[in-house]
């Protein structure tokens, strides 16, 4: 597995590929409107893998689904989402379908149910190829990546035979053995790991600049997980894609990601470079998470869990959402919301009482 890619440049030196500002999502439920995201600020830079970590209710999936506008009519989205400086939230349906698949692609958690059970693998991957290759010809200046120039040349005017060949090539690229035979298979005939590779191949068909992977390995065995993560990292290097990796598993983040953002109850609580974050987690929630993990590489005498439970979205406390469970809570934390502030060292934290120094356990 590749190491985190190089030293990060200072923010001022890079243009973000994706900029999310003050993203707020409300859901229309039978119990009324409930806020799921409370003003999320996030940036993804070209060529990096950003980890988005959180537990249930953290809003990590909602954030990305909002970017892709996959939340459906019952969600009200506010804020700014800029992709290559182009605002996405105001795009009409047609504009959005052009972005999806060809510029920003997304893969999901349970690969076998994310594939249509009555279509063959070949048909579904070819659908992606035809869809997103055709769009390449519509906006050639927007989607030519530095490294994929000649691939795009091949993709122009992709029809039946050429599309099928491209499909086989994609399946091979993601490591599916005997890709020609797999064309006629159905999703239920393949294993979870294979289906996730199929999903990845569909996502890559349009050479997107940004791949969003929503818990891509959670439903898979650990040896398959290792394979898939290694594949994703390798493809990132080959294709220069940025990746948002959504996961609840901090260990996966440590091994795969360059930067990481930690979310709790619909907000980002801490964000920064992975090495620095793990060495010195400043937000009490991040610290708590890391301290509660059992380790495979050594025996720990005792686990140090975070006491209490995650509050439901409609029952959030007035001040900081983590305050009821926080061992370092101050009086102010009960009354006010800490804002996400970025320091000079590029660490962003939303906390009135951040902890410095390494962890005790």
């Amino acid at each position, binding site marked *: 597995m590749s190491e985190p890619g190089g030293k990060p440049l200072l923010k001022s030196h890079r243009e973000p590929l994706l900029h999310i500002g003050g993203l707020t999502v409300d859901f229309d439920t039978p119990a009324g409107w409930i806020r799921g995201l409370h003003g999320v600020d996030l940036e993804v830079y070209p060529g990096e893998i950003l980890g988005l970590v959180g537990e249930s209710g953290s809003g990590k999936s909602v954030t990305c689904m909002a970017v892709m506008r996959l939340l459906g009519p019952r969600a009200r989205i506010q804020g700014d989402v800029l992709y290559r400086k182009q605002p996405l939230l105001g795009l009409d349906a047609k504009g959005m379908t052009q972005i999806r698949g060809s510029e920003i692609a997304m893969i999901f958690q349970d690969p076998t149910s994310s594939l249509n059970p009555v279509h063959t693998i070949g048909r579904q991957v070819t659908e992606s190829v035809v869809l997103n290759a055709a769009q390449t010809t519509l906006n050639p200046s927007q989607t030519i990546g530095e490294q994929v120039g000649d691939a795009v040349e091949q993709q122009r005017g992709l029809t039946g035979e050429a599309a099928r060949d491209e499909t086989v090539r994609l399946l091979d690229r993601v490591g599916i053995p005997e890709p020609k035979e797999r064309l006629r298979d159905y999703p239920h005939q393949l294993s979870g790991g294979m289906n996730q590779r199929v999903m990845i191949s569909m996502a890559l068909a349009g050479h997107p600049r940004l791949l969003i992977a929503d818990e891509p390995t959670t439903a898979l065995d650990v040896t398959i997980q290792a394979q898939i993560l290694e594949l994703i990292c390798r493809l990132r290097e080959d294709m220069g894609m940025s990746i948002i990796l959504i996961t609840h598993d901090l260990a996966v983040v440590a091994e795969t990601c360059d930067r990481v953002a930690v979310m709790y109850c619909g907000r980002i609580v801490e964000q920064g470079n992975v090495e620095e974050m793990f060495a010195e987690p400043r937000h009490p929630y991040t610290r708590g998470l890391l301290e509660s993990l059992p380790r495979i590489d050594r025996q720990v005498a*005792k686990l140090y869990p975070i006491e209490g439970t995650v509050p439901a979205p409609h029952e959030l406390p007035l001040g900081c959402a983590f305050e009821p469970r926080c061992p370092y809570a101050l009086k102010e934390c009960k009354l006010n919301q800490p804002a996400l502030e970025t320091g000079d060292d590029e660490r962003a934290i939303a906390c009135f009482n951040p902890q410095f120094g390494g962890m005790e356990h």
Partner: protein
Amino acid sequence: MSAASTGEHQFGGPANGRPLLEVDDLKRYFQLRGKGGLFGKKVLLKAVDGITFTVAKGETLGIVGESGCGKTTAARLVLNMVAPTSGSVVFNGREISGLSPSDWRALRREMQYVFQDPLGALDPRMKIVDQVIEPLVIHKIGTPSERQDKVAALLHSVGLKDYTFGRYPHELSGGQRQRVVLARALILEPQLLICDEPVSALDVSIQAQVINLLDELRGRLNLTMLFISHDLSIVRHICDRVAVMYLGKIVELADGDALFDSPAHPYTRALLSAIPVPEPGLKRERIFLTGDPPSPIDPPSGCRFRTRCPLAVPVCAERTPELKALKNGQLVACHVAHGEA
């Protein structure tokens, strides 16, 4: 492969008295029909193909493996939820596989389980306090007021406050539900607790709470546990000895530290190397297994792992390796590990 032939201490703890649970060459095959319905070819799925292990009193044995390895079937075999195709399960010196349902009822006091889905395990229409009292009522233990006291005490000790007692399962969080399931399992003070992925469905920050609780309870109640999980980090933390299963067979069985620090079987090594560690920049040797595990319907001849094994040699295809002891006592089923290549 019986316990007698390889010496009891290698299978389970100090030899003071019989182990609480002895499983000997347990097998469970499923008959499947191939394509064609009634007229299709009959095919055998060897979910569990001859496993042998023991669990000493007060010990926690972990069973790990990936999907399809047979660990859940193994748990169900021990609990008699599924009848074995062959082999024996001996509990407290008594053969229990194939017992009649009425004999089993008495045994249920001694053997309880906690499975993965706490919501599914609880009756949605009963208050949780009633669900924990129910086993006492069924087995006619104590007077009503004694029962109330016992249940209240146990619910407190699993970390549930009074206000939760009168609630229904859907009104509790995942972690709270699993505590209720635990309380219900322990109210009868069983000797053996079988856990199958007890924390996988819970949030990460809650997992540690429940694991700590299990740890504390088994110490206090001197529980013997069979702990089945795919999460090896948790298994390392809570188990004394660990068995690694692959395609229906145990490929390695050793003390926790020995297994994790110096795994003897190539599959164990690959499995351990695949697990990510929350320490960026840690240099690790990654063993990548190619492809998917073969189907348990048509496993490879000889050693089942040989098709993905980086160390495979010709003898691996010819003979199935036996689970036997290395010099340090670790049990391994591998020709190469025993120098039989």
